[in-house]
């Protein structure tokens, strides 16, 4: 591992240089200290630590996969694999003429349904607001939910989407990746689904390794 990237634990001094303390670090005098277990990275004058594990922290514009757990008369509550509950307002689904009196939320989304959504608004003091008004968002009708750590998602997507595209093409499957670590894979071919699941699990297990795309490709080709 290069000088720039190293494994750190909470309390470790990542660097003392003139850098900005970014994600998962704090500035203490001149010291930039890690607040989590992860790999530190110095880029563009900023220091950040990519966590090795942990819950998902919502960020605006993230695409997430949520599971409906309950609803009020105005909104659904979604489990988004986070310490926060996602709120999906009924107007998002029913449109602007939604009426809490006449529209029954259960008819559109019920407990246990999976939804691809985007985080419309979020700050630490309130539960994040979700939206499904966009292309490719909404209720997920088929496939299987695979839960991995949200910190491994960038690895699963790969540089410019190389990893996920490779898995999709090699296994003939459609994969919806939520930034919250929930991934839905679907395929016409049940064998393809099993292979896609295996590949996703492999990425989760070996996220710290170099040349992972090649390793996964080799594994999938050997499975053929």
């Amino acid at each position, binding site marked *: 591992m290069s000088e720039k990237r190293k494994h750190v634990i909470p309390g470790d001094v990542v660097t003392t240089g003139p850098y900005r303390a970014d994600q998962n670090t704090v500035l203490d005098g001149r010291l930039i200290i890690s607040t989590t277990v992860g790999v530190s990275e110095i880029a563009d004058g900023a220091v950040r630590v990519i966590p090795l594990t942990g819950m998902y922290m919502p960020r605006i514009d993230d695409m997430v996969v949520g*599971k*409906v*757990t309950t609803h009020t008369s105005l909104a659904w509550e979604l*489990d988004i694999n986070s310490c926060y509950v996602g709120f999906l307002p009924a107007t998002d689904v029913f449109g602007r003429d939604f009426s809490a009196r006449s529209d029954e939320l259960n008819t559109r989304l*019920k*407990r*246990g*349904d*999976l939804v691809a959504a985007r985080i419309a608004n979020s700050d630490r003091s309130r539960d994040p607001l979700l939206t499904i008004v966009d292309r490719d968002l909404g209720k*997920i009708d*088929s*496939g*299987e*939910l695979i839960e991995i750590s949200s910190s491994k998602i960038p690895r699963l997507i790969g540089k410019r989407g190389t990893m996920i595209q490779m898995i999709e093409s090699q296994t003939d499957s459609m994969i919806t990746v939520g930034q919250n670590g929930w991934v*839905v894979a679907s395929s016409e071919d049940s064998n393809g689904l099993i292979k896609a699941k295996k590949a996703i699990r492999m990425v989760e297990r070996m996220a710290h390794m170099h040349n992972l795309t090649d390793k996964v490709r080799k594994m999938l080709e050997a499975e053929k």
Partner: protein
Amino acid sequence: MTVFTTMDELKRNRIMDLLQEGKRIDGRALDEYRSITIDTGVVPKANGSARVRLGDSEVICGIKIQPDRPFSDVGEKGIFICTAELLPLSHPTVETGPPNESVIELARVVDRGIRESHMIDLTQLVIKKDESVVGVFADNVVLDYDGNLFDACSYAATSAILTAQMPRWEYGDNGPELQEGLEPLPTTTLPVSVTMAKIGSHIIADPNSDEWDCMDARITITTNSEGNICALQKGGKGGFTVDELATCGEIAINSSNKIRDILQAVVPK
């Protein structure tokens, strides 16, 4: 359990579809158990202990043996009490605090299986009749939850009992006095608990957490070494037909033979 999860509909449908084809979501046969690994002596300060992994469910049981006052109506028998607890570590939705109904049920079902099989010969645990007896306390702690804690806790408790070393006491002027030496607990049989779930019209053994979340009913049957049923507990909203109960009985007896061999293997030769 105290584990509250919302089952996603896609997974529920997949479990149901696979069962129609006679398959399970993790690829097991309908009456197949997950792998069982048992380590004993994991808590050095306990009189006996065991860690059991049943698939991804993990339980540690510790045995404490100490002199106690007998219950007033059974002065000629020792005491056996089994408890269970879920650590917050075991699942994201488990919280600390007093146990709820389902955890109390867990402890009672495990306790009943061991008690009603008469695994421990309690009549040999009397120090002085009506005055002082030996108490055996089996405390189960769940470290990781992946369904079917009834069996995981039961195997942990029985393996810990099988390998426990009991101190000896004699009744003296000041009550029970500790003597030199240790001996194994007096056991007569080896109970094996087998839990089955009913999903639709299918009966499956050892449900994992996904199957646990979508089952209609469950039944736990404990058999002793002779293959006789000595304890039974049914749970869930659904019911079993007479034929289904007979099937459950057969699965319980067949599975228990294999599991009993695994449990027996923990006893030092």
